């Protein structure tokens, strides 16, 4: 048996070894960002689509530090509040990078960054028809998750807590219900604050975890990236191992027979 089971996971026909997807926002600089990605072992990073600075086009860019030939770029629609804006953004992303595997998020309001599920569902339908492979950020709602899957989502990505909050998984029951109901991969996207949160998501049977702030805003982002790698692996191993049953009362680990 291998030291760590490296069974991989598949989304829309593409197989990855690492179950950790990391964001590329909020880092001190590109070098720290690249070092954190390397330490996390992630094979997929999320990226945003924004206007180029036409007054100073010589500024360093993300691609100079994180090579899209080695690491899969997953373009997101962060900042989009309507299906139309999200679709427009991803059409541009596909033209800029040629990638059809994308992260769809359509936000409902700025304060909580909670998803607008009606717009999210509408965008998922359009994108799937246009040949995109949308991995979809969504509410932790098992029914909405099924509807997204029917609409063409290639992965369901419920929030564990609000984006950037670091509160950890607030509702393990709904995350588990989504995992049990889904035929496509389920990844907790948003809300992870520290390593144990990532492990919890994996112990619930999620296929992966997506995070940004938990690593970028740690005092030592590179060390936290490594911690997250280990936590995701540990959580996955624990899930596959099958945890013990919980009991209300103690059960001694040492034999009672032969007591002096």
């Amino acid at each position: 048996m291998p030291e760590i089971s490296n069974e991989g996971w598949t989304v829309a026909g593409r197989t990855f070894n690492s179950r950790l997807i990391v964001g590329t926002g909020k880092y001190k600089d590109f070098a720290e960002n690249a070092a954190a990605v390397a330490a996390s072992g992630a094979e997929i990073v999320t990226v945003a689509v924004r206007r180029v600075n036409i007054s100073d086009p010589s500024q360093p860019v993300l691609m100079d530090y994180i090579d899209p030939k080695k690491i899969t770029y997953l373009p997101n629609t962060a900042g989009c509040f309507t299906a139309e804006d999200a679709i427009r953004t991803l059409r541009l992303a596909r033209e800029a990078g040629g990638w059809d595997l994308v992260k769809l998020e359509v936000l409902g309001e700025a304060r909580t960054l909670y998803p607008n599920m009606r717009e999210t569902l509408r965008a998922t339908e359009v994108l799937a028809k246009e040949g995109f492979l949308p991995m979809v950020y969504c509410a932790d709602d098992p029914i909405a998750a099924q509807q997204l899957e029917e609409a063409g989502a290639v992965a369901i990505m419920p929030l564990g807590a609000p984006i950037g909050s670091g509160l950890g998984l607030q509702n393990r029951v709904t995350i588990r219900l989504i995992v049990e109901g889904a035929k496509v991969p389920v990844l907790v996207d948003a809300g992870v604050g520290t390593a144990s949160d990532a492990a919890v998501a994996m112990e619930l049977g999620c296929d992966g975890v997506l995070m940004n702030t938990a690593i970028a805003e740690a005092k030592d982002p590179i060390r936290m990236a490594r911690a997250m790698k280990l936590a995701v692996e540990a959580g996955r191993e624990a899930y596959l191992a099958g945890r013990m049953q919980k009991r209300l009362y103690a059960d001694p680990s040492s034999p009672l027979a032969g007591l002096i």
Partner: protein
Amino acid sequence: MTHADTLEVRINGETRRVSAGSTIAALVAEIGLDPARVAVERNLEIVPRSTLGDVAVVDGDAFEIVHFVGGG
């Protein structure tokens, strides 16, 4: 350059004057961008990269030129 030789366009919300007869590829190069790393939208329609060298800039065109930046 006189006004007659130039066109007024908007790029990422900024007004710019470009030489009459420019293609979008020439416009992108003039700004100093690598066309392989950006996507161009002209009047809300994506311009496929393969045709950037064929499409002429027209007075009043509105362009969005985007690339990838860090994000979560």
